[in-house]
């Protein structure tokens, strides 16, 4: 008896539907978390990150040090 025979007996056609439910649930959890009011301040700060990346710099036009 091959692995295919064994697996064929498990009725795995439901596997995909189960996945749909699980992934839908996980996605809903993220939606809820994202829109919780207490996270608003954190996300508001994150929004500005691309605009902050040059803030306060450059210090000089020369190479001062490498990381």
């Amino acid at each position, binding site marked *: 008896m091959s*692995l*295919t*025979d064994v*697996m*064929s007996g498990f009725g*795995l*056609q439901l*596997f*995909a539907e*189960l*996945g*749909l439910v699980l*992934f839908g649930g*996980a*996605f809903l959890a*993220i*939606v*809820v*978390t*994202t*829109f*919780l009011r*207490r*996270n608003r301040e*954190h*996300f*508001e*700060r*994150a*929004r*500005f*990150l*691309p*605009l902050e*990346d*040059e803030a*306060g*710099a*450059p*210090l*000089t*036009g*020369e*190479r*001062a*040090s*490498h*990381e």
Partner: protein
Amino acid sequence: MSDRVERFVYDDRIVRMFLLVTVLWGLVGMAVGVVIALQLVLPVLNFQTSWLSFGRLRPLHTNAVIFAFAGNAIFAGVYYSSQRLLKARMWSDALSRLHFWGWQAIIVAAAVTLPLGYSQSKEYAELEWPIDVAIAVIWVVFAANFFGTLARRRERHLYVALWFYIATLVAIAVLHIFNNLVVVAGPLKSYSIYAGVQDAFMQWWYGHNAVAFFLTTPFLGMMYYFLPKAAERPVYSYRLSILHFWTLIFIYIWAGPHHLHYTALPAWASTLGMLFSVMLWMPSWGGMINGLLTLRGAWSKVTDDPVLKFFVVAVTFYGMSTFEGPLMSIKSVNALSHYTDWTIAHVHAGALGWVGFMVFGMIYWLLPRLFQTELWSKKLAELHFWIGTIGILLYIVAIYAAGLTQGLMFRAFDESGRLAYPDFIETTVRLIPMYWARVLGGALYIAGMVLCAWNVVMTWRRAPAAYAEPVHEAPALDPAYPAEVLAAGFERAAWHRRWEGMPLTFSIWVVVAVVSASLFEIIPMFLIRSNVPTIAAVMPYTPLELAGRDVYLSEGCNNCHSQMVRPIRSETVRYGEYSKPGEFVYDHPFLWGSRRIGPDLQRVGGKYPHLWHVRHMEDPRSTTPQSIMPPYPWLAKRPLDFAAIERGVAAQVTLGVPYTPPQVTGAAELAREQGRQIAQAIIAQGGPQGLEETRLVALIAYLQRLGTDIKKSPATAGGAGRRAEALPQPPPHTEPRR
């Protein structure tokens, strides 16, 4: 955050390098696109030359624009934005250079091998195994450099653009590796470990998600970085961007089977693919709306800023493509659109509009910053925008019209219940005016690209002799996570915020989402026998037919011909019995195709005498006067490699194809014998002599076999599971069967 302030310099040289080759390969890839568009209206432009024929150049075009043009643009964008978002120089300059030169070497290898006919035939995964190995290695180099930089960052929060980059890195690695698992049959020859239905499933799991994770997620990351930079205002809604991200991660990976509606793929997989595709629409539009609303209050800038113009049109095309994709995934729509130019138009709306214009916007925004001088000509950039936009519209309107026209002609019946256009060539000829419009649209688009290249070169020439390397400073990151977030715990839903600051954990969860979603579809597909019912009459190919199949995929015949008769009345009337999953169990790789520029070939076996095929390959217009197929005169001149045939049969045995040991060791002789039989039949039909050991005779053997097994009884066929001792002696076809 630590009190210790650190100083650092960004590596912009690597960004300049990637940006310059983006322009170079963009010119090459798009030029090849215009050439193949011209070949469809002027077949003489195939020049009767193997390495210039449409079937070989089409994969070169797709690979060049995806992996060379878009790929290098991704790397430029990722290297520039990641360093700034993380407040850290790339982890290793050496890895950056290795990544750059390794990727360019891969591109050159592709540009040489694809025209020479070394191809696995799977769309966007045509490259042969040594190049695939190199891609995996260089991708690991890129990933190591990126994750090393994440580890050394000075900004705790990972901005959403970085999430999209992480998803790209992990998903492309998974997709590339699992779709390219092969058994090696020579230095530049391999066979997919998957067969038929399962290979088709894996290919479109890969193909669709290559679009998702190579042409969508990295560009969305770049949109979330470069659009706010260009507009000088933050993204409209950061929360929406988070939803946008997780939507793609959770949903996109399931959608691949919508490429295989009404094929031999099991209906449950097809329906699942459709369902997830439709679910993608709204969140994708959330992303588009987020992009466009970022410009709230800045629309006045759009009128005089070419960068914003490119971005606005790009985001608009993203919205259009992500509406059209779900629409086309609906089975009844797909029945019309599949195998027609509608798909080509959809792809190009996304590629030229979304990807291309995002790249151009990014290039024009980066040029003054990278080359530390003003853009050479803003007017030229504006001209590029308008020429490019008109080019896209000309291209897609014409090709949408072509797709709808041919789709409707395929399925049209007259009042007596017969096919209204029974001769396939009628449907092709009708498209020629629209193909000319495509050539014009493509030419305009590449003309814009030339203007861009000119602007890049002239700006580069005005760059200072030595670039200033500004020194930045930022506090080092405290290794301990902020106490308030740790204290918040799960109950306060701070877990997502913690992930955002923990790249490794975050990446692992992305991998889990991508892999587990894939497995939910893949495991049932591979392990439930009822998905691929076997057919006793279906036998392995003879060694010569196998060699002919290799010629077929080497010449890229699958770029124009499908091998899949869908269970749709217009198709069964036109081509014959619809295709069954069990017919493809020995097809490593599958060759179902995705576009019918020529007719389906699944039931072509025995339809014409051998001599018809000889004449057809020599000059297609001698048998079909208005054919746009290239001639293949070299097939009658180039000898078969019998040692390669033996290696090929041995590799098939490794894959589980039931050849007997004598069939493996005697493969060359068996092939010679069948070649002699076909060559004699050709002579008897009044054809030329001396074809018995040529590639042409192998290709004819393969074509004459196609779709014939199910017409035989299991007793005469020998049976698939019986090692088919009678296999090497198929009856010679001396007369047309019908």
